[in-house]
Structure formats: C-alpha cells, structure tokens
C-alpha cells in the first residue's frame, strides 16, 4: 500500500511542469493516461522511436569538458593533498618525500590535539544553538500570513553578506573601544570579549549563528511547508493543542530536514576558517585555533606545507566519516519517506 503511494508521489513529482497533452497526438490523450490509453498509432510510433534511440541520445562527449575540468581542479588537488602530506615543502622549489615524519609530528603535536577538540566544541555549539532557533523560526515562517513574509525577508539579510563581510562587520561592532560594548558597558563589562578563551569562543559561535541561522530557517521553512495539512486537521479533531501538534506531528515529520541541516552544520563547522582568521586569528594564544585555521597557519604563515597537508587530510577524512555516520545512524540513506503510512 505505502509503496504504491510512494510511486504515485514520485510520479506526480516527475510530471510537475504539466505537459499539455502529447505533441502531435491525434487522440489528444491527457497526461494522466500515459501508456494505457495509447492508440495503435501511438504504439507504432513508440516502437519507431525505440529503434532509432541511439541517434537522439547524447554521447559521452557531452560530459567530457566538465569532467576533465573538474578532475584537474578538484580531484587532482584532493589526491595531491595526500601525496604532499608525505613531503616537506616550503612553498618554493620542489616538495621532497620525507615519509611519515609529518604524520608522527602531527600525532605528537599538542596544538593539533587541542585544535581538534576546539573544532568539535565549536561545531557542537553551532548545532546546539542554531538547531532549536531555526526550527522554531522556520516552522513559524512557514505560515502564510503576510507579516511573516515581510519579517522573513528581513531575517535573510545576513545571508546576503559574505562570510568575510560578516566577520569584518562583527569585529568592528564588538571592538572594545569603538564598538557596541563601549556604548553598553552594563552588558559587556570591560568589553574585551576577544581577550579571553570563553569570550572568543562565544563570539565565534554567535557570529556563526548570526550568519547561518537564516539558511537553516529557510531549510526548515521548506520542510514545514511540506507537512501535509491533513495531519494537523486530524490532530485538531482529536483535540491536540499547538504544543502537542508541534511535538507529535511537526517534529517527526521534519526528521529528514533535521538530518540535512545537521550534516550541513557539522561539515560547515569543521571547515570554519574565514571567521576565525578575521575575528580572533586563533587567539588568545592558541585558544581558538581550530583545525582548519591551524592548517592555514602551518601552511601559509609558517610555510610548512607538508604538515598543513596532513592536517587537511585529517579534516577531509573526519568530515566525510561524520557525515556518513550521521546519514547511516539516522537511516537517512534508506530515504524513508515521511509520507509513509498515510
């Protein structure tokens, strides 16, 4: 039963831009009766098409330019990052193979260990702060009232700014001498937020949330709009209030959306780099040196490009494993439809 419904859903999705009958079909059959209503003439034509099919389908050549280009500038660098992690290279001249020494140095590097921990902390903070806010705002913005649409337009403004612009903006706004803290001392104390570890981590988490919550709100808004109204009507008949409807209908129906949004947050959090470079430079000391920034520092500031490549490889592997794990654990890969059982 459910599989039939799923097939129907898939079919209707595939038909989305409605085709106005079939071109040149004398019977003018409606799109709903695709194969069953085929006249004898239609069947003949389909057979003719099938025999000449090779001529109308594009060959491999159509995919070559994009594939070659992408291989050169994305796949080759990915392979090279692994190769470079076994070399010593200062950015000029030729990299020299040095075996495993970058890796053993990395293994014994306390800053690397700390950076991994900080990356995990900032990523977790991002998920914990942004998920509830964006679910709440997204579900709210999914309503169709006019005022919500207007407010929603304002919410999305942070997304229009580049990460660089957002970081530069907040750096200026939080300046202890000329920024908001100097105007609102009752709230910020001495105002030197970036002078302590907890302060800088808080600022990084806040600025990340400021920029990315609108995106996740958009994602949840889309998810919430897709929840069938029937479920709410049924719940209302059973006397369930807003809160119960939220926890028993909206949240379970948003399961796949939550996973999509969380994978984005985790991968985005692990690779956060520009924000740290502009707001804290990894400081105070190495207190906000997360792995992605440590990689940049090792490579482009200390000119140890071999060591930087090793860190980069760790990042790729961890990010990929985490997203695979999340997809597996939650059953997202089986692509269970939330429309099941309807």
């Amino acid at each position, binding site marked *: 039963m459910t599989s039939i419904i799923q097939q129907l859903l898939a079919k209707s999705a595939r038909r989305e831009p409605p085709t106005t009958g079939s071109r040149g079909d004398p019977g003018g059959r409606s799109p709903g009766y695709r194969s069953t209503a085929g006249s004898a003439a239609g069947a003949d034509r389909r057979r003719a098409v099938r025999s000449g099919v090779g001529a109308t*389908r*594009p060959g491999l050549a159509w*995919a070559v330019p994009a594939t070659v280009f*992408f291989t050169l500038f994305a796949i080759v660098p990915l392979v*090279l990052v692994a190769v470079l992690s076994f070399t010593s290279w200062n950015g000029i001249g030729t990299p020299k193979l040095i075996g495993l020494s970058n890796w053993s140095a990395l293994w014994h590097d306390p800053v690397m260990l700390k950076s991994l921990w900080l990356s995990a902390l900032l990523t977790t903070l991002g998920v914990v702060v942004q998920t509830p806010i964006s679910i709440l705002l997204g579900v709210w913005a999914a309503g169709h009232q006019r005022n919500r649409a207007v407010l929603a337009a304002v919410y999305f403004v942070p997304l*229009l700014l580049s990460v660089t*612009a957002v970081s530069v903006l907040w750096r200026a706004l939080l300046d202890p001498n000329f920024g908001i803290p100097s105007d609102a001392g009752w709230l910020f104390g001495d105002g030197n937020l970036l002078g302590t570890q907890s302060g800088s981590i808080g600022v990084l988490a806040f600025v990340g949330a400021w920029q990315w919550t609108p995106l996740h709100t958009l994602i949840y808004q889309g998810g919430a709009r897709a929840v069938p109204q029937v479920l709410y009507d049924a719940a209302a008949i059973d006397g369930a209030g807003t809160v119960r409807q939220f926890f028993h209908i909206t949240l379970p129906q948003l399961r796949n959306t939550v996973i999509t949004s969380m994978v984005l947050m985790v991968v985005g959090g692990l690779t956060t780099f520009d924000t740290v470079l502009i707001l804290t430079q990894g400081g105070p000391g190495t207190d906000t040196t997360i792995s992605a920034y440590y990689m940049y520092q090792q490579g482009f500031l200390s000119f140890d490009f071999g060591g930087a490549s090793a860190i980069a490889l760790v990042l790729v592997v961890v990010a990929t494993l985490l997203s695979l794990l999340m997809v597996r654990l939650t059953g997202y890969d089986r692509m269970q439809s939330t429309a099941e059982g309807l």
Partner: protein
Amino acid sequence: MRQRPNYLAGFGSLIWLFLVGLPLYVMLTATLRTQSDYSTSGPLSFPAHLTLQNYLDDFSNGFGRDFLNTIVVTVSVVAIVLLVVPPLAYAIIRSRHRTMSTVFRIFLLGLAIPAQAVIVPMFYVISKAGLYDNLVGIILPTAAFCLPICTLILTGAMRDITSELYEAMAVDGASPARVFRQLVVPLSKGGLSTIVVFSALQAWNGFLFPLVLTQSDSTKVITLGLYNFQTEHGVDVPGLLSAVMLSMLPILVVYLFARRALVRGLMGVGGK
C-alpha cells in the same frame, strides 16, 4: 494550528529581528557619519549630520578596482559554469553510455570535498601552472568547486522534462544538439537561473582562493580588500563598514528583483 497565533515562536522571531536589525542599523548609520562622530558619540547614537564622504573615500582608496576585479571573476566563473554544466547534466539524464554513472559519481564525491582542504595543493598546482597572482588562477578553482552543486541542481530540473517530449523530438529526427537547444535548455530555465545565481554568489563572496592565490593590489577582489582594510586601517570603522555595504550592494539588488532565484541559489550555498 495555522489559525491560532503561536506566541512563543512569534516572540522568538521578534528577538531575532532585533539581533539582525541592530547590527544593520549600526552599520548603515556608521557609514553615513564621520569617523570622529562615530568614536565620540558611540555606535548606537544617531549621526549628528549625514555624509557620503566614507563611500567616496572607499573609491579613492582603490575600491573601484577591487570591484572591477570581482566582476571579472564573477562573470568568468558564471560563463564557465554555463558552458560546461548544461551539456554534462543533459548527458547524465539522457545518455546510455556505460561510464556515465561513474562520471555522475565523481561529481557526487566532489560534493564532499571542502575547498578549505585543498588550498595547499591548489597553491601548488596554480603556482606550477604560472597562474599565481593572476585572476585566472582564482577563476578556475572557483568555477571547479561550483560544479558538483550546479550539476545536482540542473539534473534535478532536467528530470522534470517528460520523456514524451524527447520522443516527439526524436520522431522529428532531431539530433542531440537540436534536442539540447530546442527542448532541454528552454525547459530548464528555472534550474539554469538557480545555478547562475549560485555560482555568481560563490565567486562574488569567495575569500579562500583569493587569499592564498593572489597577493598584489592589481589582482585584489572585494573580500580580500575588506580583509586588508580591516587589518591595515581597522580603526576607520565608518570607512570599513561602507566598504562592507558596497560589497553587498549588487546582491541586494538581485535580492530585490529576483528573490526566488536568489533564495534557491543561497540554499545551494549551504550545500557546500
């Protein structure tokens, strides 16, 4: 549920409005006042008198050149994406060639490669190719990293074209090139506009590749200009924030006139 007001979420949304609105207010007013007015009266006060001098100063400090460089990069990236992605997506949807699924899998794998992870080898490749400190050296990697998401978006749009339409074209004896020109491209306009917006945003806002692949003023793009401005004259907040405003102006214009396409493109940004 939709009929009853949701007070908790409504309240939350007001707080969010404040958190978004306050910085935007400070930014806008700061750009319209003098530096001394900003530092003596504080960021939250309203400017004593309004001036556009900060914007003019930005242009005399080379912002115009950064702007032009960024336009060159953005237009080139969009051109490359439009040149290679539609044929690729068409082939993925319609080709029966054995290797096509491998090709598609390469691009899916590409989704998982963060640009941050490849900046060291990219620096190596671009230096060896003699493209270091050259706009071409920014354009090529930026375009390459747009391809996976753009391919995914466009194949999704092209799947909506029904097979009856292809069959009708085949009966007319159309070649793949003609099918592509007369059927596939016209019917995937929505997807095409999304990938244009997405890749333009990536190029316009890109920071990482310009940071590690260029160094001189003549190849500086806006984001790098903002970063340099902040590290060199960070105390000139009004000048800095007016540069931030200018950098977002083109996106704001697109937001006002093509919101739907922009929002879809932005959703793609999150996918990276």
